[in-house]
């Protein structure tokens, strides 16, 4: 396997509230022989600002991101949404070589594993019933899989990484890629619709027998976990990095 010099981008809510997801991502990439560096001055990709309509206020944050992630072969993050934001919406910065390079080389973890490292069998054992929550920005933005609306051949980079796990049972959902209702600041400005969407998503996983809901994005999982805990449900959430890092490589 080729060895790359990787800048590890840990989104703000993972850093603050879900460090275990960051740790799993780091350990997994290290196990795969990659040189992983966490630029210590990083903060956030700026998406919370931009999605609220404050793209202009985010420019300093964007610039801060670009400055912190200079000089890596790839920038890898356990978040489809943040990777998509850097790639798609950093178009408002002046497109210097540095900006262009950062945008082109920022990858969501699963995408990096399948597209760049070309691995799919991570020798995982995860004997559980797992439902895949297709986080929207990863699915429809980064095209990590074929969304149900498009009449294109079916594929899923996330499923490809999980289905070889020993003992795993990937359950089928009634609505295979409906949004969970997190949507960044949408969760705050439209709390009732947001919570209802989350409840419905969780029910779909429960109804179809999932023990775990996994996703490429901790933000979706944080939202659903918040509802699960409030409603004292037993189903659990687990970021895909945590499952993939249970391997014995």
């Amino acid at each position: 396997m080729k060895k790359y010099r990787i800048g590890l981008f840990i989104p703000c809510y993972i850093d603050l509230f879900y460090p275990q997801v960051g740790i799993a991502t780091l350990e997994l990439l290290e196990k795969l022989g990659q040189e992983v560096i966490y630029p210590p001055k990083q903060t956030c990709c700026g998406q919370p600002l931009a999605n609220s309509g404050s793209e202009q206020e985010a420019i300093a944050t964007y610039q801060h991101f670009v400055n912190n992630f200079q000089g890596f072969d790839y920038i890898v993050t356990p978040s489809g949404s943040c990777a998509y934001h850097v790639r798609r919406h950093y178009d408002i910065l002046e497109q210097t070589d540095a900006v262009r390079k950062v945008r082109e080389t920022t990858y969501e973890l699963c995408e990096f594993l399948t597209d760049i490292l070309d691995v799919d069998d991570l020798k995982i054992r995860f004997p559980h019933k797992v439902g895949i929550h297709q986080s929207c920005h990863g699915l429809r933005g980064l095209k990590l899989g074929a969304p149900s609306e498009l009449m294109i051949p079916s594929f899923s980079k996330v499923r490809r990484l999980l289905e070889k796990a020993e003992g795993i049972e990937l359950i089928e959902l009634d609505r295979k890629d409906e949004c969970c209702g997190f949507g960044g600041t949408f969760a705050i400005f439209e709390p009732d619709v947001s919570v209802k969407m989350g409840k419905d998503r969780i029910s779909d996983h429960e109804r179809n027998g999932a023990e775990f809901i996994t996703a490429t994005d901790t933000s979706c999982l944080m939202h659903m976990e918040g509802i699960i805990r409030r409603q004292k449900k037993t189903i659990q959430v687990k970021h895909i990095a945590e499952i993939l890092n249970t391997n014995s490589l």
Partner: protein
Amino acid sequence: MTPHAKKAKQFLADEARTDWHNQTLWIVRKKRDALAAAVPEWETLREKASIIKENVLANLDVYLEQFEAAALKNGVTVLWANDAAAFNQIILDIIQKHEAKNIVKSKSMLTEECGLNHFLHHKGIDVVDTDLGERIIQFRGEAPSHIVLPAIHLKKEEIGETFHEKLGTDKGASDPTYLTRAARKHLREKFLAADVALTGVNFAVAETGTVVVCTNEGNADMGVHAAPVQVHCMGIEKIVPRQEDLGVFTRLLARSATGQPVTTYTSHYGTPKPGGAMYIVIVDNGRSKHLGNPKYVNSLKCLRCGACMNTCPVFRRSGGHSYGYVIPGPIGSILAPQRTDARYTDLPFASSLCGSCSNVCPAKINIHEQLYYWRQDLSEKKQTSFIKRFSMKMTGFVLSSNSRYNFAGNMARKALKYLPHKLIYLPINAWGRGRELPAPPKQSFKQWYKNNRKNKPQ
């Protein structure tokens, strides 16, 4: 809370009904999927539709003049309206010129947009909406909650009650066939007595001057062929260049809209009937000024199929009326702000930006990206609340510096750890309504990394 969020909360108060609304529209989405999947060239068709519309929008003045010339040759009177007021006046003039008393109208979102019924009502003229769903909501004095399924917010019992009151159907009767038959009888009388029939337009063919109207009920044809005067109302963007382009659009429209391979009737009106009069009214009403805006011009490709509403997880759970604009849902949320009306500035925020709308759109409009652009533009024009803008400025200040970020992050985790539950979940905390906050970990990733990988080179 924004107006949309408030109205959504009211809609969601009846959870069983919300679930019904959600599931019913989801079934329409699934029918759409099945029908689209049966067309091997589906994605190519969408691409073609998008390109044809691009060609139309880039040459719109040329096509409109070509269309008018062809329609004039067909013996049609063509009238032009800059805005809603001019449009309404044109319709009133036609009605008065023909001394018409009885007006029937099949579905036209354009006349809704222009407030035609309301305008005519104040001039003493009552228009009868003849689409069943539209007649139902007209009886109830409501606005359509969906552009293709205008009465989707209602239960059959409520419709039964309305029909009992307005049409004398049996009290408590709610069988859809029974109610539809009652409406058929009632509206057939209206058709037979009609002096003027108004319709919307799905497509207007530039090279032939023909207008095309698609319905399942046959109400456009009943009105148009029964009344001596037929009036077709179209936005400037309804043009397709050539007859053959209709092949692309008629394959996409009903499959996207209702999951049917085609509507029951696809009617092509070219010339007036013998002894009759035919008018086509071409309306701008603010459309042309968005042609030059690369961010928003694609919104003018819309076929008004409603597929984005059926797939939208927010629309299905908040109902069409929560949007407060004549066209609700994702497409409405990018069309409404074009009206530069302060009432609609919250609509681009009434979305989780999941992107499903853009994927079902038969004309490949990048709806979710335009929602994102509108958010930027509205906030730049200072049309979002001061508190929101101030908090965003502060957030930007924190996130653009490592030390400010670290300080804020530590405070947040400490607050979650030490503050009592009651204080964290004050009513002001929108997150806490229905959700717990994450349990604060002992240390952030940043701290963990420092402790565990400190020998790493930087």
